[in-house]
């Protein structure tokens, strides 16, 4: 099958999974006694109904897109990084620390803060990667545990060392004006970091398609044994992929501080985007460029959910149900052609008179 047909099939899977998930969400709204049509309308209006709504949605695209890319970079090298929450928080801490300590107001500060955020995320992912490499601790477990540690670390920092002096609230001082992302669309929460996120998506796509490093990562993920025979240092490639993955989610976490309204570190600054970003990548079929529309869709859903609460009282936690269904739906859809339904259909077809029943032994493929 050509790449085009495969891509088309993947697109259909994603669209179908998203549609089913949204429909299930609306059904939930209906069952729990809220006006379904009105809620769906306010969901749409809240997502893309006005310039303000577009700005808010696109602002949320930034962390989702970056985390989606982070998942893709790791999974292409057959590494599983599920600790985006922790890496985002590490990035947010580093961005806040640099942003509050630099003064002067020039945009060099912003560059330094974003690089610091990337370094923070990469450092945390590096711990997990190092533990996997030298001590055999699976990254699935270590990245999750590191996230829990980081949540508590942030809680401690904003009540202790990084707490805003003279204030009684658990929050850090705001970052210097020069370290904050400038607004892109005035009157909306959209900042220039969206350009960085989209640029990184293009960069990741290009790197996988046309660079030697990207090819090495793909080889390592697709067939580690063959890659090793081809002279690729698979362990080193995997480690590098984890570091890049952590850096991307670190930038996402940094953005959440540097483009926020108050520009400071607070509890839950990661906004739960760590897991939803995985949904973005899956919805995009692990393709970097497809992450852009996927992130817009899921960000719109989140923003629309917020308006839905204020107009018809539907709890925004509903969005979590839809997001979960999207993840499960896409993952299942990718296997539909090998799943039971297709098998049953094939069996039925073969049991019809006039057809020869062929069944290879199970081990035949080996």
């Amino acid at each position, binding site marked *: 099958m050509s790449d085009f047909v495969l891509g088309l099939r993947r697109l259909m899977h994603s669209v179908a999974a998203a549609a089913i998930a949204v429909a299930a969400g609306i059904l*939930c709204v209906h069952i*729990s006694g809220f006006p379904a049509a009105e809620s769906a309308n306010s969901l749409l209006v809240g997502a893309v109904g006005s310039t303000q709504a577009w700005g808010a949605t696109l602002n949320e695209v930034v962390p989702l897109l970056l985390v989606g890319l982070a998942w893709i970079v790791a999974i292409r090298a057959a590494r*599983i990084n*599920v600790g985006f929450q922790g890496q985002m928080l590490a990035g947010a801490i580093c961005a806040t620390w640099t942003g509050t300590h630099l003064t002067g107001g020039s945009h060099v500060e912003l560059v330094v803060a974003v690089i610091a955020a990337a370094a923070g995320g990469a450092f945390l992912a590096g711990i997990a990667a190092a*533990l996997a490499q030298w*001590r*055999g*601790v*699976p990254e*699935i*477990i*270590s990245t*999750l*545990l*590191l996230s*829990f*540690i980081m*949540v*508590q*670390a942030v*809680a*401690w920092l904003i*009540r*202790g060392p990084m707490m805003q002096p003279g204030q009684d609230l658990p929050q850090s001082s705001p970052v210097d004006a020069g370290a904050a992302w400038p607004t892109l669309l005035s009157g909306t929460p959209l900042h220039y970091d969206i350009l960085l996120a989209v640029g990184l998506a293009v960069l990741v796509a290009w790197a996988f398609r046309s660079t030697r490093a990207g090819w090495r990562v793909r080889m390592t993920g697709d067939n580690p044994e063959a890659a090793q025979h081809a002279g690729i240092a698979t362990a080193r490639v995997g480690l590098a992929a984890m570091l890049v993955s952590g850096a991307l989610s670190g930038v996402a976490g940094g953005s959440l501080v540097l483009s926020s309204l108050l520009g400071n570190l607070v509890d839950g600054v990661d906004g739960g985007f760590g*897991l*939803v970003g*995985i*949904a973005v990548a*899956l919805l995009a079929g692990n393709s970097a460029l497809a992450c852009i529309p996927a992130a817009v869709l899921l960000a719109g859903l989140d923003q629309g959910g917020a308006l839905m609460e204020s107009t018809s009282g539907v*709890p925004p*936690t*509903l*969005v*979590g*149900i*839809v*997001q*979960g*269904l*999207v*993840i*499960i739906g896409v*993952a*299942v859809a*990718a*296997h*539909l052609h*090998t*799943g*039971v339904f297709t098998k049953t259909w094939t069996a039925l077809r073969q049991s019809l008179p006039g057809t020869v029943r062929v069944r290879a032994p*199970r*081990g035949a*493929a*080996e």
Partner: protein
Amino acid sequence: MNVFDATWLATSVVACAPLLLAAAGELISERAGVLNLGLEAYILGGSFFAYWTEYASGSLWLGLLGGVAAGLLFAAVMGVASIQFGADQIVIGIGLVVLVTGITSYIFDVQFAGGATVSFDPMGKTRIPLLSDIPYVGAPFFDQNVLVYLSYAAVPIVAFMLYRTKWGLAVRASGEAPTAAEANGIKVRLVRWQALMAAGAAGGLAGGYLSVCQLGFFVHGMSSGRGYLVLAAIFFGRWRAKGALIGCVLFGATQSLQLRLQGFGAVPREVWLAVAMAIVGHLLYLVLARRVSWTATLVVEGVLGALAVLPVITTPSVTLPSELWLGLPYALSLIVLALSVGTARMPSGLTLSPRAH
């Protein structure tokens, strides 16, 4: 006031119970080749639906049943997706965590206006006559509710089932070599379904224990990472029942220790002593059992042991803010994993679909 008094022992036993219950089911499932990253979801779902069922029916036992049913339901989603369709187990696990967090929070928000909580009496304690009179250990261990007693037996029962029954052999074969098991007439899919249902039921029961038995109410995200701690414990125990048991007890005891240490001004001397003893004990075990496959382990642990003995002598005044104490169980499990792994061997078929040749 001693840190390691009977109160600490009692809270440790209570903290270990849900971990042990969930670990018992998850152990079966992982040995059969199904990794439940969604164990967190089964526990969370179990705790909410147990609470909701008790709210609707007024019966604690029906509530527990509701929790088990929820665990089974979410495990069934996992089964359909990963066993029937062959979808990626880890991805489905992540999806389940997001989905169940959404479902429980949504219904909780709609039904209870997100926090206007009705709380119930937790499960009453059943005192075991003679045993509970033993000094120090008696009351903490033998004056608890029925589910805590069940948690003592859960992992040993699973160990018996895994290693001493025909079904256990089928389970282990399905996880170790699914293709060979299938060739020998074991229905791998069926066995995996059974094992997965055990994990779902156990996770749901552990969740129900948290909400209706231990506390009598529900809060958003009640499971708070216990599912992941259980996965870490099983990994630490190298997929063996005894190891998983030790892992759960270690993490449960740390959880109750950090709760207690939050109330202390500085870290008391007993804690340093315990840490030093644990490291030296483990070191001795490594040497005596000749389990040293990695000489660097010896060096690292020797240095750590020496470092841990130091504060026992000098008794420095170390104080930590409560937030960092809350992170301690996770940090400890990470450190323990890093020190212990080395020769871990997971079931070869873990996370692989039975048809993946």
